[in-house]
C-alpha cells in the first residue's frame, strides 16, 4: 500500500505513453487510471491543480506532474535499467535533445497540423528541417537515440514513431519520407519492434479516428 504507483492517463496521449514505457522498461508495477479529459476526476484536479493535465504519477500517495519531471523522478527512484547516461556530460547532451524536441518539435507540430491551410507547405518544410537536424545530429549513426538501446530521448521522440502518421494522413502531407529521412525512418521501425515497446503502442486506427474527430470539431484552431 505504502509504495503503490498509480498513473493517471489518457489513451491517445504521447506524454502518457512516455511514462508507461519508462515504468514498463524498468519493470515497475503500477495501477493505470484512464481519465476522461472532458470530465476530469476529482483526484486529477487535486493532484495537478496547476495544469489539470495527464500524465500524473502518484507514488506512495504523492503526485508528480509534467511528463519530463515524472521521467526524471522515475529514473532517480528506480535507477536500474537506466534511461539516461551516467556521465554528466552525456546526460546534458540527452537533456539538450529532450529540450529541443519539447521546444522546437512542439511548435513545428503545431504549425503543421493545427495551423491554417495556406502555410501548410512552408510548415511541412520547417518540420522537415527540424527532423533533418534530429536525424543528423541527435541520431547520427546510432540505432537508437540512446545508442544500442532505448533511452529517455527515444521515449520523447516517440511522437514521430506513432503520432505523426495519423497527422500526416489527416493533413495529406508526408513529412517522414524514407527517401528524405532514411535513418529516422529506420529508427521508427526499430523503436516499434523493441520488446515492451511493441506490446505497448497506441492503436493506429483508433488514433486516426480520434484525431479525425478532433480536427473536424475545429473550424479554425488558433495557433
Amino acid at each position, binding site marked *: 500500500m505504502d509504495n503503490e504507483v498509480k498513473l493517471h492517463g489518457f489513451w491517445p496521449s504521447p506524454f502518457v505513453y512516455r511514462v508507461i514505457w519508462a515504468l514498463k522498461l524498468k519493470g515497475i508495477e503500477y495501477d493505470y487510471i484512464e481519465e476522461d479529459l472532458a470530465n476530469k476526476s476529482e483526484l486529477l484536479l487535486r493532484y495537478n491543480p496547476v495544469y489539470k493535465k495527464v500524465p500524473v504519477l502518484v507514488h506512495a500517495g504523492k503526485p508528480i506532474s*509534467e511528463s519530463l519531471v515524472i521521467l*526524471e523522478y522515475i529514473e532517480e527512484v528506480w535507477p536500474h535499467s537506466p534511461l539516461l547516461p551516467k556521465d554528466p556530460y552525456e546526460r546534458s547532451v540527452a537533456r539538450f535533445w529532450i529540450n*529541443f524536441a519539447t521546444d522546437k518539435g512542439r511548435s513545428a507540430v503545431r504549425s503543421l497540423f493545427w495551423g491554417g491551410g495556406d502555410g501548410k507547405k512552408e510548415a511541412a518544410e520547417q518540420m522537415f528541417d527540424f527532423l533533418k537536424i534530429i536525424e543528423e545530429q541527435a541520431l547520427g549513426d546510432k540505432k537508437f537515440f540512446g545508442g544500442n538501446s532505448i533511452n529517455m530521448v527515444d521515449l520523447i521522440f516517440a511522437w514521430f514513431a506513432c503520432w505523426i502518421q495519423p497527422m500526416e494522413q489527416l493533413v495529406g502531407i508526408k513529412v517522414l519520407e524514407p527517401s528524405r529521412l532514411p535513418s529516422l525512418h529506420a529508427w521508427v521501425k526499430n523503436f516499434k519492434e523493441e520488446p515492451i515497446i511493441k506490446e505497448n503502442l497506441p492503436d493506429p486506427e483508433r488514433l486516426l479516428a480520434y484525431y479525425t474527430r478532433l480536427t473536424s470539431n475545429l473550424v479554425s484552431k488558433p495557433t
Partner: protein
Amino acid sequence: MGEEDTVILHGMWASTYVKRVELALKIKGIPFEYVEEDLSNKSALLLKYNPVQRKVPVLVHNGKPICESLVILEYIDETWPSHGLQLLPKDPYERARVRFWAAYIQQLLESMAKLFNPDHKEAQEKALEEMYEKQRILEEGMREFFPEESPNVHPEKLGILDIMIVSTLGAFRAQEEALGVKTLDPEKNPLLFSWVEALIQLPVVKEIIPPFEKLVSLLQFIKQNGIKF
C-alpha cells in the same frame, strides 16, 4: 574536480538565461571565464559550440559545450556536487517539485517576453492578463512550498528556485520603467515580491544584475523594434 578545469561561459549581459548560469557558478564558487557575445554578430566559437540553437548561454567545460540554461544548471550540480551548495534537493520527490516549479517559472518568463512584442493594444492587455495569472498561480504554489511566511533567503542555501526567481523577476523595476506598467505587484504577490527583494540584496546577486539604465534602454529598444527573444 581537478585543478586543470577550464570553465568558460558564453553570454550576453542582459540575458535572463545567462544570469541563471552565472549565478549558479558563483553560488557554487566555480571559477569561470566570461565571454560576452554580440548576438547580432555571433562568434565562430559560439556557432561551433551551439550549432543547433546558436544561442547563449553556452557553458564550455574543458572544451565540451553544454547548452540550454536549465540543462546547464543540472550539469553544474551533477559535476560539482560537493562544491558548496547543492542547487537541487537530495530527495527525489523534492527534486521533482523543484523541477516542476522551475519549468513553471520558465513559462512565466515566456509570458513576460510577450509584453515586449509591440503588436497592438489588445495583445498587450492579453499578455498582461496571462502574466498576472501565472504570477498568481506561482504565488499560490510557492506559499505551499514554503511553510513559513516567506522564503528564507540565505546566501548559504540558495537553490534552483532562488536562481529562477531572481533571474526572471529580479529586474522587475527596469521592466516596469520600460513598459510603463507594473510587472510585480507587492499587494497581489507579497511572497514573490518579498522573495525578490531579499534576493536582490545579496552580494552575489548584485554582482550579476545588469545596470538599471542600460537595461531600461535595451528593453525600450526591444519593445520599439519588436525583437523576439
